[in-house]
């Protein structure tokens, strides 16, 4: 193996591949070979860097130069200028708010600077298809340590000390959960990784599975050893084909090295790992439904107890954790629980990965210590609101979460602080909304989602959410009645209290929090038949400002409904009854005389 003076890392995650990173990879390999530089420069395909929006991402080491939106056409210049002559190609440099003149090291970019990467530490840094690179980053050292120096009880103690809590939404203390399963009698036990990632808008699990799959597998091995399980399943969404491919490779490599299979490291510990593809039902993310789905049945939740720790998969004691939870375990065992517990808040320890999306300048994956404020995430890491618009709300926790306002920006994020204000941590989806987003519409959007995904087992969830959705649809269409708000509150509270599983118990949250914090928007829809954000089409009106109109007739010509009349050089008018609110006129008007209200 020769020595390489420089490594060029190209993101091979789902986001960047769809922006064309595979072509960039090909062009680089070809270009370097042509110049005879392929012996001194190594090209590596990595997992997601968490900044997919700016993809394809290319990082050049040892300088740590971060290039974004690189296309195959840029490659010759990149090779000639940077790799050959050592001159940074400024045009492709990531420009945060900083000046282009000082080229920051990868880690100095504001988006990464405030982050603290533990779960994501290898994502975008190693080649996920290479077990050796994972080992070079201390991979599997925790497994060796546990199997050679630690009892299963000691492993559980360490996880308890770390204060790690479930990252799949519930936030249940992981060490405690493991101890239940460990104590449960039985010669056959299972560990399961929940990679169903149903929250629309969150993609940290995909990124982890694509970028550092060995960490998830090592975490599961540690858990299996601690709880006495010898078989495991990773239940992954079928929508993540790349993650599934990487996982298969990972299992092959670990098996070749004897890290999976019989008598691992020559001990009595054996572990077999399978991958199951999900079949597209959100409710299968719920643990009992997920197990039913692995068994080949309809994925419907069942009442607990019995808990999976006693009767889980095929009636055997089982333990299920989320992808991110598992990925944190190797670092905890390697560095000790105290090390992990030193980060975060009193009751919420360590770091959490958030998927920052919506109307912010830099969207992407953000891993920060618990206790970081929403303001820091949205404004410092995320670089503030897109197009200089005003921040309105942030939706945390996906369809089970809630919408928070600018008054909550300074809350230090933890499981407790979020539930106090009516939101939840959930999977860590963080969707930023600006003044153009209508909160009634957003609430309706989430309810549509949960309503469609309700498995139908319990009437309050099945029928209640439908009722709520009907009301919201009516309000958005300008046909709401004042008593609708109380009805929503009543139904929401009832569904929360009487549903069997977490889907129903949390489905009303987006509606209830928006009712609490944005009641005036609901009232405007109902009382004034007006959508303040101009988002609900049925309530939007297009009006021509007679003072601005120059009578060019452009709008009348594009209107599909013939709703616009007026003589040449005279102000035009829109017939509201005919208008179908397509917005074509407003776009066509050269003097911006048409207002959307």
């Amino acid at each position, binding site marked *: 193996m020769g*020595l390489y*003076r420089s490594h060029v890392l190209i993101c091979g995650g789902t986001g960047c591949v769809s922006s064309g990173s595979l072509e960039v990879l090909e062009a680089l390999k070809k270009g370097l070979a042509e110049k005879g530089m392929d012996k001194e420069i190594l090209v590596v395909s990595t997992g997601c860097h968490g900044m997919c929006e700016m993809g394809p991402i290319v990082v050049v080491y040892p300088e*740590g130069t971060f290039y974004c939106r690189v296309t195959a056409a840029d490659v010759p210049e990149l090779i000639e200028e940077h790799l*050959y002559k*050592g*001159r940074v190609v400024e045009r492709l440099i990531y420009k945060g708010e900083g000046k282009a003149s000082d080229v920051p090291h990868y880690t100095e970019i504001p988006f990464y600077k405030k982050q603290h990467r533990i779960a994501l530490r290898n994502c975008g*840094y190693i080649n996920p298809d290479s077990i050796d*690179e994972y080992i070079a980053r201390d991979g599997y050292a925790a497994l*060796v340590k546990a199997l050679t120096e630690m009892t299963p009880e000691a492993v559980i103690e360490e996880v308890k000390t770390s204060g790690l809590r479930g990252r799949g939404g519930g936030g249940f203390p992981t060490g405690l959960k493991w101890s239940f399963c460990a104590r449960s009698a039985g010669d056959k036990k299972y560990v399961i990784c929940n990679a169903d990632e149903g929250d629309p808008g969150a993609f940290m699990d995909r990124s982890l599975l694509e970028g550092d799959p060995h960490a998830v597998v090592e975490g599961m091995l540690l858990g299996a050893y601690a709880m006495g399980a010898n078989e495991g399943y990773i239940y992954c969404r079928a929508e993540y084909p790349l993650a599934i491919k990487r996982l298969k490779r990972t299992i092959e490599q670990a098996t070749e090295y004897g890290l999976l299979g019989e008598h691992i*490291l020559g001990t009595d510990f054996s572990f077999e790992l399978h991958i199951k593809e999900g079949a597209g039902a959100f409710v299968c993310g719920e643990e009992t439904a997920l197990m039913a789905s692995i068994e080949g049945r309809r994925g419907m939740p069942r009442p607990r107890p019995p808990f999976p720790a006693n009767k889980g998969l095929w009636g055997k004691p089982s333990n299920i954790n989320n992808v991110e939870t598992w990925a944190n375990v190797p670092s905890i065992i390697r560095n000790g629980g105290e090390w992990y517990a030193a980060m975060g808040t009193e009751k919420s320890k360590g770091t959490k990965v958030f998927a920052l999306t919506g109307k912010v300048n830099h969207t992407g994956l953000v891993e920060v210590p618990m206790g970081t404020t929403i303001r820091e995430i949205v404004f410092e890491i995320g670089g503030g609101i897109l197009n200089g618009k005003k921040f309105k709300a942030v939706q945390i926790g996906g369809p089970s979460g809630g919408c928070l306002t600018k008054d909550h920006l300074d809350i230090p994020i933890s499981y407790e602080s979020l539930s106090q204000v009516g939101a939840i941590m959930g999977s860590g989806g963080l969707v930023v909304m600006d003044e153009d987003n209508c909160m009634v519409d957003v609430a309706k959007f989430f309810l549509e989602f949960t309503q469609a995904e309700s498995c139908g087992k319990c009437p309050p969830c099945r029928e209640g959410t439908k009722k709520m959705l009907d009301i919201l649809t009516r309000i958005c269409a300008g046909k709401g009645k004042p008593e609708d708000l109380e009805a929503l509150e009543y139904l929401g509270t009832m569904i929360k209290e009487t549903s069997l599983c977490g889907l129903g118990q949390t489905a009303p949250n987006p509606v209830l929090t928006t009712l609490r914090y944005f009641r005036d928007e609901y009232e405007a829809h109902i009382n004034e038949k007006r959508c303040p954000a101009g988002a609900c089409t049925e309530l939007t009106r297009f009006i021509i400002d007679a003072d601005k109109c120059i009578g060019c007739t452009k709008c009348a010509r594009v209107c599909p409904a013939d709703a616009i009349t007026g003589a040449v050089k005279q102000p035009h008018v829109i017939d509201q009854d005919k208008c179908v609110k397509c917005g074509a006129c407003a776009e066509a008007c050269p003097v911006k005389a048409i207002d959307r209200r």
Partner: protein
Amino acid sequence: MPKIKTLDDLKKIKESTMDLTGARSQGKTRIIIGMGTCGIAAGARAVMEAVMAELSRRGLKDVSVETTGCIGMCQDEPLLDVIHGGESRITYGKVGPDDVPRIIAEHVVNGRVVEDKVIGRTD
């Protein structure tokens, strides 16, 4: 592929791969070669190849090799800078491939500046 049985097996893989991934962090010692137009004309490529050859011959780790553009001292090309540990940046001028083994042995390995070739020092 041999199965991993002990911590030592793991360490072996780790070390051999670290050689590979080492380039992904800035090494303790940095060697920077001027690759501007006149640098290349004066033979900087050959100097860089000599650096790479010498490093791998000696199995030196934790040294990163970087290139840089014109730094405005064209008359002294090829230029080669060494930053050893946290010390100041030493610039060597008129470096030929033959000078490379000496600079690496003295400066990079033993931390002694090769005075007769130095043309500049910056912090």
